């Protein structure tokens, strides 16, 4: 491992004709970090990764790797390894040949290639499949082969483009945990593209949340979850995501459907706001906001309630044991520090 892998994006713009895929993207990745690019499809996260890899050129802006401007450097010369969403294995080569390919291109002597291939295959547990062709492997095995090909080279940067999206749910969870361990043990900088916020939350040291070609927020998963800085992120992160309810702010209180709730968030004077409430932060309490239970989604250990608060739909997560019945009228509240305020005009956090 080169022990490096610092990345900086400086005002990267990517135009496809009239359409701006990226509208000036800035971020920094520290060496050894597991950095996720999270966003819905079409938000520009994959474009960002391809520009970092050198597969696409930005329309404007600069890409720096280890403080060196690589904006016009070819993908070949960037010392970057990548796992593609489609795996992109060479179909005519065996697993061993696939893994050996980057080493052969680096003109390593044969005596060094064979043990390196074995070692990489062992790390991802496919050392018994070395003589197979990709077409004879299952999806999970192909994915591991692609991983082995990427780690065998000990590149300074390790890019992953939705590597788990083609696996079934169970395998995805297993591989996710292994991926994290692998990255830790290798100590390599990893950049991970995903549209699955759960993946980003569990894997990443830090993440950048993309929305329509812009980065809306960069931070640790905990920070982004605790303090989403826009309505769009609040509505994207969390499962189910944050309730966003139009309300009125009157010195220290918010008024939702005629009911007053105390908040620690402050803004000037009296104004319209959007209140953000995490489904898990809502509590059942006497004398709170009245609501009727429309629907119950029982998840086993918890349940998600769809509540109707005088025409406003609010979702609430309750622990098993005190689940009300459908059609019941309940009363809910939230702690002052759990109430987030957003500006309805700028959509930013207040």
């Amino acid at each position, binding site marked *: 491992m080169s022990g490096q892998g610092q990345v900086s994006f400086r005002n990267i713009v990517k135009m496809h004709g009239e359409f701006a895929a990226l509208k000036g993207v800035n971020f920094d990745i520290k060496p050894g970090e597991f950095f996720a690019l999270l966003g819905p499809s079409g938000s520009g996260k994959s474009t960002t990764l391809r520009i970092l890899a050198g*597969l696409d050129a930005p329309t404007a802006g600069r890409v720096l790797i280890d403080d060196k401007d690589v904006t016009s450097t070819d993908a070949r010369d960037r010392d970057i390894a990548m796992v593609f969403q489609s795996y992109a294995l060479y179909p005519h080569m065996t697993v061993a040949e696939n893994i050996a*390919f980057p080493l052969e291109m680096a003109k390593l002597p044969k005596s060094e290639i064979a043990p390196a291939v074995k070692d990489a295959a062992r790390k991802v547990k496919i050392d018994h499949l070395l003589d197979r062709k990709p077409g004879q492997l299952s999806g999970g095995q192909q994915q591991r082969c692609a991983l082995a090909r990427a780690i065998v080279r000990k590149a300074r940067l390790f890019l992953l483009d939705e590597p788990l999206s083609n696996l079934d749910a169970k395998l995805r969870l297993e591989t996710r945990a292994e991926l994290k361990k692998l990255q830790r043990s290798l100590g390599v900088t990893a950049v991970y593209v995903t549209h699955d916020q759960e993946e980003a939350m569990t894997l990443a040291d830090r993440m950048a949340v993309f929305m329509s070609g812009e980065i809306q927020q960069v931070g640790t998963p905990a920070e982004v979850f605790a303090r989403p800085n826009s309505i769009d992120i609040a509505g994207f992160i969390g499962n189910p995501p944050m309730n966003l309810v139009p309300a009125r702010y009157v010195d220290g209180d918010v008024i939702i459907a005629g009911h007053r709730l105390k908040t620690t968030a402050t803004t000037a004077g009296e104004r319209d706001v959007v209140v953000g409430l995490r489904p898990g932060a809502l509590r059942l309490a006497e004398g709170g906001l009245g609501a009727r239970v429309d629907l119950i989604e029982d998840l086993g250990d918890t349940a998600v309630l769809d509540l109707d608060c005088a025409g406003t739909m609010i979702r609430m997560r309750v622990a098993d044991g005190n689940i009300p019945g459908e059609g019941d009228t309940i009363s809910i509240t939230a702690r002052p520090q759990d109430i987030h305020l957003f500006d309805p005009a700028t959509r930013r956090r207040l």
Partner: protein
Amino acid sequence: MTTTAVTSAGIASEAPRSDFGRVLAQRERRFAAALLAPAFLALLATTTFPLLFLVYTSAFRMDLAMPFTNGFVGFENYQVLLSDERFWASLLVSLVYTGSTVALQVIIGLALALLVMDMKRGQGWFRVIAILPVVLSPAVVGMIWRTFMLAPEFGIVDFLAINAGLGSKNWLGDPTLAMVSVIAIHTWQWTPFAFMVLLASLASLPEDIYEAARLDRASAWQRFRRITLPLLRPAIVMVIIMRTMVALTAFAAIFTVTAGGPGTATEILNLYAYRKSFTELSIGYGSALAVALLIVTIIISGLLFAMRRAK
């Protein structure tokens, strides 16, 4: 339809029932044979019979110029053939002609396909224009080249040669140049076929493996050698097989351009058999030559198909 369902009928009624089934099956087979018969007979009459008759006549002396010498001679024609220098010369011409035209078609076709794949615009037009020579009759192509392209002083090729400072050449009169010319003509006409097949094959290769190869630090040449060529191999082998079979039995283009000349410089085995049979009217010996060509073709295609099956 033809199998009998044994239900609760028991063993007693089973025997006549399966008899009935056998009769039905037989009838069906007969009906199928009757439907096939016309096509089968036509095939026999137009391909198998002439072939067998060819082998049969090759065992006779059948000289239309000297009919009084005609008669059964057994393998004599083949004995003559083995010591016939003109046969060996024409076989060599055939092999050179086939080898060089097929190699050129594959190399130029692949190069063109790679170039066109990278064209951002005009791919469709290029394809249409490229396919034009293929749809022409080889005889017409031969005439075009003999007059329009290769005629000394007036032909385009000769005009270019003069302007390039090479001077006017007797393209079809000089033995070496004549061979080069007929090879060029065949290549010109049939390269588009290789081009089209290889272009289709290239277009079906996934783009992401090339991106992976770039990140794996493969140069353009390495990407071609290690990825494109192995993945195109089935298509290339197929083109080689199809074009080899046609080139071995080429006739019309050479016949119209040089008729095998000057002398026997461009006389492929096919043309020699034709000249022997219909110019010198020695049908028996001509048949033996044709059988020899058939054997050569079978051996070469056998080798090529073995190559295709091999890994």
